[in-house]
């Protein structure tokens, strides 16, 4: 009796499976930073288009980048330098499909100890998150202001932004080059302040914070699904722009932050799907000029970004979406 019952069960599942296979399953890599926080809303939005998203959390951008390149995940967001870094090492399976905006990186100093000019930076101890776009912006700004990066007192702190804050408070560093929510945390807790210095102004790197990227083999087999994802993504940006309260709330909940820290974190963030390709080329050049990657990929990098999906989702032309910026 039991055997027959089991057989019937297996038949039922086998018949039902094609029906379930209607929706496309996608793994989305996610990090808990304000820059990517609108993406918390993506699974709900994507469901309306028939895409079933499973979130995979990562601690480091390098991990997400590697997972996307190998195809373990199909979509994620990281900095504008990440595709260039991967290409420099020979990885060709990443494609940028949209921008995420600007304003998320920040500098933070101890309250009352402002740093006003780039010259002052030479005898301060700087804590930096290596490999981040914040680091690139800072390095580019340093060079553009006539200083030599490797003559500075750089302290490389790994393992999360809270270590930067501890180091700042404990006077082990004088300035941290990080990103929200850590600056926000320091502000809200009262011991930190934004310096007069601004590193979002470098000519080379500009202000772009993140790009949305997909795995190329996945994209080539599922162009339809990728289009739906980008369309859903544009919808997400709209929601976040219109209702910053809801955005802050969901970010606070997912990151485990108090609401005022979350609010401060997203206050200076400007959401924008534009992908400034010239800026990305300059970043690539900057990386090879400074020995971060071994060859100049600025000539080929354009092949690893596509405006097709974005154009269809927004109804705008590639020029309007940043191809010449």
């Amino acid at each position, binding site marked *: 009796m039991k055997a027959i019952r089991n057989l019937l069960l297996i038949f039922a599942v086998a018949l039902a499976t094609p029906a379930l296979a209607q929706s496309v399953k996608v793994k989305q890599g996610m990090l808990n930073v304000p820059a990517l926080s609108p993406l918390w809303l993506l699974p709900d939005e994507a469901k309306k288009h028939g895409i079933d998203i499973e979130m995979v959390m990562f601690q*480091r*951008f*390098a991990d997400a*980048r*590697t997972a996307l*390149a*190998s*195809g373990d995940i199909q979509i994620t967001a990281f900095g504008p330098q*990440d595709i260039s*870094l*991967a*290409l*420099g*090492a*020979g*990885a*060709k*399976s990443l494609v940028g499909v949209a921008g995420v905006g600007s304003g998320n990186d920040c500098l933070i100093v101890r309250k009352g100890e402002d740093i006003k000019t780039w010259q002052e930076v030479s005898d301060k101890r700087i*804590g930096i998150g*290596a*490999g*981040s776009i914040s680091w690139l912006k800072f*390095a580019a700004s340093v060079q553009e202001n006539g200083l*030599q*990066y*490797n*003559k500075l*007192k*750089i*302290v*490389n*702190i*790994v*393992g999360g932004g809270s*270590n930067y804050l*501890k*180091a700042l408070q*404990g006077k*082990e*560093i004088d300035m941290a080059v990080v990103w929200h929510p850590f600056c926000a945390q320091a502000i809200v807790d009262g011991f930190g302040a934004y310096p007069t210095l601004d590193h979002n102004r470098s000519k080379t790197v500009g202000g772009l914070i993140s790009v949305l990227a997909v795995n190329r083999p996945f994209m080539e087999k599922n162009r339809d699904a990728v289009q739906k994802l980008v369309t859903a993504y544009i919808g997400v940006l709209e929601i976040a722009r219109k209702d910053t309260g809801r955005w802050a709330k969901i970010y606070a909940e997912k990151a485990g932050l108090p609401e005022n820290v979350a609010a401060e974190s997203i206050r200076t963030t400007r959401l924008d799907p534009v992908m400034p390709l010239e800026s990305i080329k300059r970043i690539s050049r900057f*990386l090879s000029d*400074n*020995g*971060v*990657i*071994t060859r100049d990929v600025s000539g080929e990098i354009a092949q690893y970004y596509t405006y097709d999906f974005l154009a269809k989702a927004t109804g705008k032309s590639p020029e309007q979406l940043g191809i010449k910026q």
Partner: protein
Amino acid sequence: MLKRLPAPWLLVLPALLVALWHFAVDLRWVTEGLIPSPAQVMRSWYTWIFGSSAAMLSPYSGTWLDNVAYSSRRVLQGFGLAALAAIPLGLLIGWSRLASRVVDPTIQMLRPVPITAWLPFAIAVFGIYDASALFLIGLGAFYPIVVNTTHGVRDTNLLLLRAARMLGAGSGTVLAKVVFPSALPSIFTGLRLGIGIAWTAVIVAEMIAVKSGLGYVLWDAYYVGRMDICVATMFSVGLLGFISDRIIVWAARFLLRWRTLEAHG
């Protein structure tokens, strides 16, 4: 009689592994660009050692020797501290039953905790200074040294102890002049194991907050996708660990000459 294998035979296995690695990358068994080829690693390593250390953003040109010096200093200091603490403690635990009962259980309970788990504690207590790194390296090296020293003490031939006492030696002399020399071979085993772990620990330790060192370069390189430098770092640490081990073996051979002698009868 087994003849001693001529040197070229020792290279067969490594050569096979390198060949396998080369083809894995070349034939794309792994996603392209995620694993560097042996040639890429060698090129990058070469630049790292001999390249010009011009004003570079990333420390991958001409900075190898500096990084080696920095990490080696850390390892030696941490290891030195560990030995300084562990050898006397091991002698005490092996010699005194009271000390053993009081101290040993704590040591055995802390031993399974991996070095990475100590990282947050180290940062909290020592901050981002060298002290954190030394603490972690020393902690890693501590356990094999203390355990092997204890073992060496407990293994002392009872007749040697009796002979010494019969000849008029007090407890202090027995400990210093009989137990300690008798335990030296085991102590050296502990030191060898300890230095190996110290090199393992340097990667973890240098993650914290340093400007150079092999551990720092490993993590920095990973963040910017330079797996070729990561692999070169791994090889570097392996090489330095090997050299350190050999130094201890030679020191042991020198100090323990009496072990290798044979009777002429």
